[in-house]
């Protein structure tokens, strides 16, 4: 699954550690999420969406759909 998590994080000026702290996960998890290696659970996806005040679909997209930034 593709996502624009790193762009959203950088927009906020947060480090991976800051985002990890806000989401109560490890920094490794943030790293894996940003690289698209790990797909989050639904609760974590909702938490991410709520943190960035966006819909889940605006952050995560299946691999076959092009990522479109929604601001």
């Amino acid at each position, binding site marked *: 699954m593709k996502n624009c998590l790193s762009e959203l994080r950088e927009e906020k000026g947060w480090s991976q550690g800051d985002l*990890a*702290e806000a989401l109560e*996960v*490890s920094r*490794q*998890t943030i*790293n*894996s999420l940003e690289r698209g*290696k790990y797909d989050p*659970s639904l609760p974590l996806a909702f938490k991410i969406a709520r943190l960035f005040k966006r819909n889940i679909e605006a952050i995560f997209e299946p691999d076959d759909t092009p990522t479109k930034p929604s601001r």
Partner: protein
Amino acid sequence: MQESNESGLGQTTGERLLKNFLVSEFCLIAGNLLVRFLNRQALLPPWAIAIIAIATALPILLFAIAFFRMLRADLDEMLQRIVLEGLSFAMIVFIPLAGFYVNARTAGLVSAKLDPPEILLLPAILVALGVLISWSRLK
């Protein structure tokens, strides 16, 4: 905040857990060797040997409790997945191996006798290998 937030499985919680595991595994194996030696030499009464055998197995029990608590409380979902995949890998490899060994030995195809230290170490090595494989896939 969870402890694993700062550095994850690789450093804080994971490192402590690995250290505790190695220490408790060492106690277990050293205890096993000591008990064998004492049994052979008959230096201590049987009750004293039994106490040594139980005492040296206690650390691994404490480790198991700590591991269970860490799995539920200290690890986030991805790290839990890595650990659980590591455990699954160990079981998937160990159970058929054990099955083949037991049947082959019963049939007389294998004469090598595995002692407890080797048997105890194999699942641990397999878990570590499984965690490494899962970790490298998700990293």
